[in-house]
């Protein structure tokens, strides 16, 4: 890298060292490009904005070996809880459960993903905030502030991995502003003294506890768990924090729990942007809306995007052509891999949000004690439609 006092030049600049950005930096560097990864944080991964659940095969597909350094606990069950407390249990072996497998220690995980990027050859600058971006003829100029120093970074490609607060896309002319109805407010306590039904089960609570979303308990080993919820603000008069206080006060599992950490974050749940690539610029992760609209999970899908974007960036650098035409391959590949399942999750979410507390209770009652091993998808739908006829219209197509 050609470092003058205040101007840095590089092939690829990645803005944001979350899971999506670090994965992009790693794969761009592996492909032979000169890469700089910047993050405004002084410690990558901290504070976390996450309940920390990921699927095992998601990580496996990305070629990431599980490490005891960043896995807090393993999960193989899901407990779904209706408003009046009726629960339905699902097992990992019988049902494909997104975002279930490992509960991570994100602060450590994110840092390790950045280390992998560095090992692949990427440079990293922490405490470096991107403040402005201008598209030039054949490069991108980014103004940034690094520990009080104003610097300019000239790169051939910028990968915007700047999370739910993303500004990079809009600087580059992409329509990436989240509508408030598509932005969930997530709040969470990490707690100790949580009395769990099963330390290997993630729990989801539905209904008016979390208007527009759901509440969760994600265990992290022993009596520790992330206890949080996501809401859509226009669907309630209380803020997310107050909903969380109510939930923790009412929930059986948290009667004796004490919080040691408070986490906050926006979750873009409107589905991926229509366009997340333009000349010299690609968006990955939350910045591109690559979050499962049903669960709010975005670690794996963002990392998948990072992998593809990194590879495509390295190729474009090798070919000397960083135009939209050449970068578009990233968008096409990501959409091919994900758009079908995202459409299903969007439909399922619309249906879920249309249900009242009473409807949720009667569905839970119908499925309580069900042996999901023996129920095929059509039988499942049939059973659901009996108690909730509108499921036919809302969900029929996705089964």
């Amino acid at each position: 890298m050609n470092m003058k006092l205040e101007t840095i030049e590089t092939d690829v600049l990645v803005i944001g060292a979350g899971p999506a950005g670090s994965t992009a930096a790693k794969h761009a560097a592996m492909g032979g490009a000169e890469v700089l990864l910047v993050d405004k944080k002084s410690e990558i991964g901290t504070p976390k904005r996450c309940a920390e659940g990921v699927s095992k095969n998601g990580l496996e597909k990305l070629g990431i070996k599980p490490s005891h350094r960043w896995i807090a606990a393993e999960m193989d069950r899901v407990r779904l809880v209706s408003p009046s407390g009726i629960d339905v249990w699902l097992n990992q072996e019988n049902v494909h459960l997104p975002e279930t497998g490992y509960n991570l220690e994100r602060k450590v995980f994110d840092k390790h993903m950045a280390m992998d990027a560095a090992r692949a050859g990427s440079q990293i600058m922490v405490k470096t905030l991107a403040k402005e971006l201008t598209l030039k003829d054949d490069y991108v100029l980014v103004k940034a502030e690094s520990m009080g120093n104003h610097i300019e970074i000239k790169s051939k490609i910028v990968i915007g991995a700047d999370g739910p607060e993303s500004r990079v896309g809009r600087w580059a002319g992409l329509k990436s502003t989240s509508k408030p109805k598509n932005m969930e407010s997530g709040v969470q306590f990490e707690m100790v003294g949580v009395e769990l039904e099963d330390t290997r089960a993630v729990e989801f609570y539905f209904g008016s506890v979390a208007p527009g979303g759901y509440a969760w308990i994600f265990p992290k080993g022993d009596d520790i768990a992330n206890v949080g919820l996501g809401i859509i603000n226009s669907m309630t008069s209380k803020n997310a924090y107050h909903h969380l206080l109510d939930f923790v006060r009412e929930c059986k599992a948290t009667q004796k729990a004490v919080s040691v950490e408070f986490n906050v974050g926006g979750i873009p749940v409107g589905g991926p942007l229509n366009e997340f690539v333009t000349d010299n610029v690609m968006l990955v992760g939350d910045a591109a809306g690559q979050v499962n609209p049903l669960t709010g999970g975005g670690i794996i899908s963002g990392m998948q995007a990072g992998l593809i974007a990194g590879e495509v960036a390295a190729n474009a650098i090798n070919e000397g052509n960083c135009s939209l035409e050449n970068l578009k391959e990233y968008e096409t590949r990501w959409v091919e891999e994900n758009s079908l399942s995202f459409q299903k999750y969007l439909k399922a979410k619309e249906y879920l949000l249309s249900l009242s507390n009473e409807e949720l209770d009667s569905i839970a009652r119908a499925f309580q004690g069900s042996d999901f091993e023996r129920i095929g998808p059509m039988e499942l739908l049939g059973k659901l439609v009996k108690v909730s006829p509108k499921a036919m219209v809302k969900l029929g197509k996705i089964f």
Partner: protein
Amino acid sequence: MIISEFCMYCGECAGVCPRNLIEVGENTLKFGQKPCKNCQICIQVCPVSALEVEG
């Protein structure tokens, strides 16, 4: 905009600002130069209600 000291710098407000005016640093929140149209979307989405209009 009045920013309370309990702002968590999570950046949700920045993601929804239709004019892309909000800069979220590690421990700073700044509203940019372009005129704010006072749509107050940032105030509505804040998970901890840390934003308030001046005056």
